[in-house]
């Protein structure tokens, strides 16, 4: 599991872990049923306090992202919680912002951008059918 911790921007480390696990799940890099690393292993891997991992896992469990099975460990939940859709939208929103900023700098208006998205989408679908 790839997680990167930065300690210079004031975001609590447990929230960084929670957010990155949510992204990993939303993007499919962590699949339902996958086993999460144990507290000790992840604490050593990230060199962070074990209590921080405990707190992150608790938060993820409460959000329905992971499930604890007694005695065996922590797993990515089988049932897709409704908030995962929100997470997906959140990921796309930052991409959309970048696209819109660039469009504005290049003086391309919103109608043109939407038209472009439709065209690109159509091309992508054609390619998939072609295969």
């Amino acid at each position: 599991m790839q997680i990167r911790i930065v300690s210079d921007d004031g975001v609590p480390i447990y929230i960084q872990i929670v957010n990155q696990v949510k992204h990993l799940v939303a993007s499919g890099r962590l699949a339902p049923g996958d086993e999460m690393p144990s507290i000790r292993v992840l604490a050593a891997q990230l060199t962070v306090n074990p209590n921080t991992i405990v707190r992150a896992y608790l938060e993820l469990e409460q959000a329905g992202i992971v499930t604890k099975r007694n005695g065996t460990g922590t797993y990515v939940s089988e049932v897709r919680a409704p908030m995962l859709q929100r997470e997906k939208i959140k990921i796309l929103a930052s991409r959309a912002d970048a696209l819109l900023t660039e469009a504005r700098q290049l003086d391309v208006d919103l109608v043109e951008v939407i038209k472009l998205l439709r065209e690109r989408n159509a091309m992508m679908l054609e390619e998939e059918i072609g295969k």
Partner: protein
Amino acid sequence: MKLPSPSSAEAVVAITDLSRRFGAKTVLNDVSLYVPRGSVFGLVGENGAGKTTLIKHILGLLQAETGTVRVFNLDPVANPVAVLGNVGYLSEQPDLPGWMRVEELLRYAQAFYPNWDKVYAEKLRAQFGLDPAQRLSTLSKGQTAKAGLLVAQAHRPNLLLLDEPSSGLDPIVRHDILQAVVRTVADEGRTAFFSSHLLEEIERVSDQIAMLHHGRIVFCGSLDEIKARHRRFTLHFETAQVKPPVIAGVLSLSGEGKEWTVMCNGTRTELPSIAAGMGARIIDDRVPSLNEIFVAHAGTFVS
């Protein structure tokens, strides 16, 4: 035995009202701190703040002039064997007998600690890449730190005590040291106490911190609580300010022209109205990093 405070029952280290003078200089001034069992306790402070002097009291190398020091509820000066037998200590410059070979060091250290774990020591030696036949005097600074860390860890001490362990070391050795700290706590709930001026390291692994400044404790407690008590605001003024704006009760203020950054203790709910009164907008409001908190506190005491 009289306990200095109710919370000290679960404290591995309990220091109460400790003061220490060297000649005319007061190095520790009324210091009280408690290190809860199973925590990673980070001690921060500038060079000369008194960190090493404090650690020497925990080790029983210095006797408390005023106040009390208890480690595992014992006076470390009166009970050196019971205390030091349960402490793994690594100093900034480990004082290892240079004429010994690595394998001799392991046998030598083993004699001091009844709980020495030979298998674990060998595992650490291999993991750290230390050659058993190499003389200690020929080890690099990083290898010396690893050898010191090995000796500090291999008897699985109840308290791992590290004084500026990362000082002047490369990132790989620093990572090994931090991993030792994390493992100490993750395995069997033992306790780690370490001092450092690398605040990113402290922030990553500690759950309890204290800041020592000119011999006094500036703050001491849970890292989360201390962070939550501080806020960092960025103010944007309509016109460039020639002189720093005057705001009562802030820890520090920096910036120039139209943008100024204010560090506050507490959430300071009144700050938006103060800012509005001065013709400024708050354009950023966030929890600061430990580094920013440290700099703000250190600055307020420097004249």
